[in-house]
């Protein structure tokens, strides 16, 4: 009988991260004046050892032993067969989830927080600042800093600070200082508070505060840390996929489909990039980054970005010219223009190695609830997006009568997101806010316009 979970022995844990920059080409980022950015330009916010990783094109980078020592608290994470979820779906597909919710903060984020804290420590840094939205990244960095005896200062966007008191308590328990942003501790924060004392804050303000504290420390012992998008973050996350590959080898199975939710790209990249390497080397495998359909960055150009006319109000976007809310044609974004998405993930989409998928909000929570009722673990809302795509693939396998193996990144648990579940279960969430009457009116107005062209991924 196949075991429920495939547990990789700790002595077989990967000793190197996989750096996808060795296998793809990216244009160098340009700084002010259009000049390529130099590593030293980032030195005020990152230690040089991390900057070297950010620009490295070495394919394999050693994981330092002290980092492995901390990661071993919860790694290797289990690769678990979601057999009850399969049964609930009635699918012939075999579904595995790489369970990143078992980390102390409950998500994949410490996979990079731990090495970032370590590299800062060995560089002589004593204090790390960062910003956080709902607190997942802030709590991961707080945990990591505690492991290496570093001070940690987290600027949490006020609206989330007020909504998520338990995240703040987690950070404080690990010894971090968590303040609502904007705060009176920085010039950036004071300026905002002077203009609007009741502001809910924003990520932009919180980042400004965190960077200001790092840059203005006269001792030079403070740096800043970022938990998504950057190359070194993706690099550190690849331990997820490298472990998964070893775990599948243990049972003699190879996945046909790899799925992960992609916000900034990091948990998706963590599972997917080692499989992208396999795909580059000729293996047949489908790799799907998943995002919410309601606010897409990968599957559809954000509204008007790709339209040729200056204002973007051509008949191709009838809702603009007619003032109606209307489901616009999904247009492939093309090019590196995905807001907030990792450049490496964006590049791989452009090259056709990844096929982005979008899922609706209700389908996402439906998948999450089914998963919770069958496998027991309550997924984070973002994880639900990936699970909704799993459901689509499992149903496709059922329709085709095909056995296939799906692996999904279970990026985190949702135990601190129960408010979202409560709303779903109370029927307070919907996919489209428009009423049927309004929708019919909008559709009648645009009946002679080109029919929406669907992406191949949907």
């Amino acid at each position, binding site marked *: 009988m196949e075991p429920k979970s495939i547990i990789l022995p700790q002595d077989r844990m990967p000793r190197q991260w996989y750096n996808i920059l060795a296998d793809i080409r990216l244009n160098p980022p340009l700084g*002010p004046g259009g000049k390529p950015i130099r590593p030293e330009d*980032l030195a005020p*916010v990152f230690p040089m050892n991390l900057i070297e990783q950010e620009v490295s094109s070495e394919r394999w980078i050693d994981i330092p032993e002290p980092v492995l020592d901390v990661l071993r608290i919860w790694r290797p994470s289990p690769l678990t067969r979601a057999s009850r979820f399969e049964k609930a779906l009635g699918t012939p597909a075999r579904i595995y989830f790489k369970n990143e919710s078992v980390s102390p903060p409950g998500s994949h984020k410490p996979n990079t927080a731990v090495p970032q804290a370590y590299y800062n420590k060995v560089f002589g840094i004593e204090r790390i600042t960062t910003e956080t939205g709902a607190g997942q990244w802030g709590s991961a960095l707080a945990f990591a800093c505690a492991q290496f005896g570093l001070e940690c200062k987290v600027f949490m966007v006020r*609206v989330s600070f007020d*909504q998520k008191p338990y995240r703040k308590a987690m950070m404080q328990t690990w010894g971090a200082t968590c303040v609502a942003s904007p705060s009176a501790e920085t*010039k950036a924060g004071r300026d905002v508070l002077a203009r609007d004392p009741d502001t809910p804050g924003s990520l932009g303000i919180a980042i400004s505060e965190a960077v200001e504290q790092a840059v*203005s420390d006269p001792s030079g012992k403070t740096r800043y840390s970022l938990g998504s998008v950057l190359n070194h973050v993706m690099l550190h996350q690849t331990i997820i996929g490298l472990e998964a590959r070893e775990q599948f080898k243990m049972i003699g199975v190879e996945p046909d489909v790899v799925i992960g939710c992609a916000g900034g790209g990091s948990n998706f990249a963590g599972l997917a990039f080692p499989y992208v390497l396999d795909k580059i080397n000729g293996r047949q495998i489908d790799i799907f980054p998943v995002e919410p359909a309601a606010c897409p960055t990968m599957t559809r150009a954000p*509204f008007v970005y790709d339209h040729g006319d200056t204002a973007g109000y051509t008949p191709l976007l009838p809702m603009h010219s007619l003032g109606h809310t209307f489901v616009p044609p999904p247009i492939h974004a093309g090019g590196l223009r995905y*807001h907030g998405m990792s450049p490496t993930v964006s590049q791989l989409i452009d090259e056709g190695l990844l096929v982005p998928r979008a899922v609706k909000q209700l389908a996402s929570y439906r998948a999450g609830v089914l998963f919770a009722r069958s496998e027991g673990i309550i997924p984070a809302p973002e994880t639900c997006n990936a699970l909704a795509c799993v459901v689509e693939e499992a149903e496709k396998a059922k329709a085709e009568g095909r056995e296939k193996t799906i692996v999904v990144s279970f990026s985190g648990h949702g135990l601190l997101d129960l408010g979202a579940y409560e709303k779903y279960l109370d029927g307070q969430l919907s996919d489209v806010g428009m009423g049927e009457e309004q929708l019919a009116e909008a559709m009648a107005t645009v009946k002679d316009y080109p029919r929406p062209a669907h992406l191949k991924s949907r």
Partner: protein
Amino acid sequence: MSPFPDELERRCPRLGGPVRFAYCRTAAARGGVCPKILDCWWERFDVVSLMRKALSGEAFARLSQPHRPPNKVASLIDLIRQARERTGQAP
């Protein structure tokens, strides 16, 4: 009475938690409109017309015209420059 449906709520993909529309109107740098406001709200109501009326022509054009978002590394370097200017530090 505010002309905006400020009480409407959705999950912010950047923050990872629920926000009201009022937040999206002020979530960008210096209290500006979040660059994703049109992408996030178009399914709920006619946010395009609303923002076109609410913003100056120039501000609305910035929000809606084709543009390439800045690379994260380039953004960080700009934040470093701004922080140094605010705190009176030489580069």
